[in-house]
Each structure stands twice: as structure tokens, then as C-alpha cells.
């Protein structure tokens, strides 16, 4: 068994090394396929990051009636927090709103003066509600508009944001579906191209296979070196495409971060480097070996 493995490995390596341009073509196609798969993964990471960023900016502001006691406000906050759809409820009191307004407009004396003329604090206390996912705002809104809340709520600032929120949730689900479709389609194309390249390489060896059979080689003795060749090509391709990704993410990290508002390609890559490498390795080896096995099957029938 050990001799068999050693010989198979040696034959596979010799075949790969002496195969020249065909081996090179196989490795190249595998690099393209593996890099494409990894890029799709990274792109998915980027899109996820963008979506989280946008989702973070959505909320509903509920302005509370000005005659509410502190206790009533807290009770309302608690009630909303208990809803499964709600992620967080942040309270902004009348005083906080005033301070925030003054801070925001400290360079605008006219506005500040008019505040003084009014004499009292004109702001309402409010609750900023954030849902777990954007499509849950409708459910939260129903509760806010119900008669139980009538005595508490002065105004819900949602209608203005409604279209934006709805469009966004639609956009997000579209992006996810389209991304998945694109990934599957590209993946299938890449696998077919790889499979075809390896098939052509093995077709080139069909005469050799018939000679091996004539000399009395068993099917496993013939098949073994081709599997080894697939493993070698897959490993080399995975290593090269890993290095390419490393360089690309290293040099484009900062630029992508500024475009996407905080998605650092290189640190994303760094955090998953080992997993990604093994994923690429597995993709390369599985593609190489499976294509070899399927392609060679045709020539092994007696």
C-alpha cells in the first residue's frame, strides 16, 4: 500500500511537471475559479457590512405628549422594549432635546435668540425605536397607532421615513437574492470551464491510458496519478489565488474602507485568512480531483 501510494504520487508529480503547458492551463483556470469564489465571499461580506450600516441609520421617533410624568414615559419605554420586534428604545427627554438643539445650532444666533423669546422649552420628549430588521417597522407602527397609546403619543415620525424604509427593505432582499443567484451562476460557469480544461488535458493522455492498460495496469494504478495531478494543480492554484487575494486586499484595503464607510477589506480578510485558505484549498482539490475522475472514467472502460 505504501509503495502504491509512493509510486502514484511520483507518477502524478512527473505527469504534472512534464505536462508543461497543459498543466499550466489547468492551474490558471483553477486560479481564476478559486479567486472568483473567494471574491464572491468577500463581496458578500462587503454587502452585509453596507446593509448593517444602512440599517443602523433607520429608526422611528415617537414624540411624547408634554404632560406625561417621568413614570409614564418609563412605562411606555419598557412596554415597547418588551416587543420582540424591537431591538432598542432610546429615550430623549425634553431637556436633552433642548441641549442637543442648542449645541447643534450654537453658531446660529438668530435661532438661539428666537428660543429665548419663546421663553419655555418647546421640544417634546421622544423615544427612538430601532427594529431588529427593517421589515418589522410596520408591526411596531401598528402598536404605536393603537388606542392604548393614544394618550401617550403625540406624533410618530414615520410617514416621512416610510417610503425610504420600505424601499430599503425591498432593496436589501433583492440584493441578497440577486447576489445568491449571481454567485451560483458564476460558480457553475467556473466549474464547467475547469472541468472542460481538465477533460482536454486528460483527452491528451487517452493514448497513454490505452498503453497503460495494454501493459496490464489496473484501473486504480492508472487513475491514481491523475488524482495526484488534480491535487497538485488544486493546491498550487489555491496557494497562488490566496497570495493574489492577500496582495489585492492589502493594497486596496484603505481605499475600499473610505468608499464603503468602514469596511476594511484587509482586516476582513485577515480575520478569516486561515478559514479562507482552507476553503480555497478544498475548492481547488475537490475541483481538480472530481474533474479528473469524471474525465478519466470514459477511458477506463474495458
Amino acid at each position: 500500500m505504501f509503495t502504491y501510494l509512493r509510486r502514484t504520487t511520483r507518477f502524478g508529480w512527473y505527469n504534472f511537471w512534464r505536462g508543461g503547458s497543459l498543466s499550466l492551463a489547468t492551474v490558471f483556470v483553477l486560479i481564476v475559479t478559486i479567486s472568483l469564489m473567494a471574491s464572491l465571499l468577500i463581496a458578500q461580506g462587503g454587502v452585509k457590512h453596507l446593509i448593517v450600516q444602512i440599517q443602523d441609520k433607520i429608526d422611528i421617533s415617537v414624540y411624547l405628549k408634554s404632560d406625561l410624568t417621568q413614570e409614564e414615559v418609563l412605562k411606555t419605554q419598557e412596554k415597547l422594549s418588551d416587543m420582540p420586534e424591537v431591538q432598542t428604545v432610546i429615550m430623549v427627554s425634553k431637556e436633552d432635546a433642548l441641549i442637543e438643539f442648542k449645541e447643534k445650532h450654537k453658531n446660529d444666533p438668530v435661532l438661539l435668540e428666537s428660543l429665548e423669546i419663546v421663553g419655555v422649552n418647546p421640544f417634546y420628549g421622544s423615544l427612538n425605536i430601532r427594529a431588529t430588521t427593517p421589515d418589522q417597522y410596520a408591526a411596531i407602527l401598528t402598536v404605536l397607532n393603537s388606542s392604548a397609546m393614544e394618550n401617550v403619543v403625540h406624533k410618530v415620525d414615520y410617514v416621512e421615513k416610510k417610503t425610504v424604509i420600505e424601499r430599503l427593505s425591498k432593496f436589501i432582499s433583492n440584493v441578497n437574492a440577486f447576489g445568491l443567484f449571481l454567485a451560483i451562476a458564476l460558480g457553475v460557469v467556473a466549474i464547467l470551464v475547469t472541468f472542460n480544461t481538465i477533460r482536454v488535458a486528460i483527452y491528451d493522455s487517452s493514448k497513454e491510458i490505452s498503453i497503460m492498460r495494454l501493459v496490464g495496469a489496473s484501473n486504480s494504478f492508472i487513475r491514481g496519478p491523475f488524482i495526484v495531478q488534480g491535487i497538485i494543480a488544486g493546491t498550487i492554484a489555491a496557494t497562488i489565488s490566496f497570495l493574489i487575494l492577500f496582495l489585492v486586499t492589502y493594497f486596496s484595503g484603505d481605499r475600499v474602507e473610505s468608499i464603503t464607510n468602514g469596511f476594511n477589506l484587509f482586516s476582513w480578510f485577515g480575520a478569516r485568512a486561515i478559514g479562507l485558505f482552507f476553503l480555497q484549498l478544498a475548492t481547488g482539490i475537490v475541483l481538480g480531483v472530481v474533474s479528473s475522475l469524471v474525465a478519466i472514467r470514459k477511458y477506463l472502460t474495458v
Partner: protein
Amino acid sequence: MIIFETVSKIYIPKTVALKNVSFEIQDNEFISIVGKSGAGKTTLIKLLLREEPVTNGKIFFREKNIATIKPRNLPVFRRKIGAIFQDYRLLPHKTVFENVAYAMEVMGGTDYEVFRDVPKILRIVGLEDRGNNFPRELSGGEKQRTAIARALAIRPQLIIADEPTGNLDPYHSKDIIHLLEKINDLGTTVILSTHDKAVINGLKRRVVTLSNGEIVRDEQRGRFIL
């Protein structure tokens, strides 16, 4: 050792390659199969190697009907036969040494046996200096000697040579035939298929003549008559 019993081979739709061929080959015999191109020589060899099935009749190798050999046992059967062809059929990506060694490795020979026997065999065929060359770097005669070395490496009971001199000049042809005679003298049965008149007349051994798929002559110490 080998018996052909009313063997016929018909290629679909109706090309008759062999028609009711019957003859017997004894152990340690040197037999030549002669005939014009298309007489059925190559078909006969393909049937004997079970590269193709017979249409009718039976072929026995050491009393075993080769049609009954299961596909998975075919490699073992073929390891008993050393085959040599006009187009050499060497593995192009392996050196001369590796081509010969491959046949032994297929048989399960150990590395010790490979490194002990391959140089000896290469010496027998006169290729001791060509071990590291690839087939593309050899002359026709050297390629054929490599093929013979490979056939010898498995210590076969039978060597089948299908037009081994077809691509060679008269000098190298003689060289190859001498080598086959030497192998036969050492105790291996040899079947030689050829349409080379000079080769046959020089051999003075048994000749089976095929014409249109039928045996028209079978003579001990035969000559080339078509």
C-alpha cells in the same frame, strides 16, 4: 499453449476480418503470421489480447477460454503477455528507464527488483546508455528496442510482436528480429506478425499465412508466399 478454435470476427455491419480460423501454438514456439494489409493479422492479435471480443469461436490461453475472463481480471491476464507494436506505444512522458520500470511496477515489483532488473534488460536490448532519454529523443530502432525491453520486464510467457519492423530500415529490422529470436531461445513463446518478406525468409520457422481473414497456409520452416 494457445488454441484458436473456429474463430470469426465480423465488424458491424458486415466486414469479415477473420473467418473460421483454427490453429494451435505450442510452448516455446516462434510463429510468424503473414499476409497482406487487411488480411486479418492485427485483428487476430487484438482478439488474443482481448482488446476486442470474438464474434464466433473460442480462444484458449493455457486451457482457459479468454472470453470468460472478467474485466477486472484482464490486467492480470495481460501481464502474462508482452506486446510490441509497429507504433512502439511507449509512454511519451516517461524516460526509457521509467517505461521499462512501469511494466514491472504494474506487476507489483519492488524498488529493489526494479533497480536490479531494468539495467540488465536495457543491456540485453543494447540501450544501457539511453535510460534517461525520453522516447522523442530516440531513433525508430531504439524506440522498438525500448518496447521489447518493456515486454521483457514482465517476464512474459508469450511475446506478441505486431509489425515490429514496419517503421524500420532493413538494418534495424534485422536487429529487432535477432533480439526476438534471442528471447525465444531463452524460453519465451513469440508470435510475430509481419508482411516483411526478407524477415520471414531469413527466420526459417513456422509461418501461418492469412488471406482475406482465412488461413491459407500453415508450414513449419515456412517461406513468405502470397
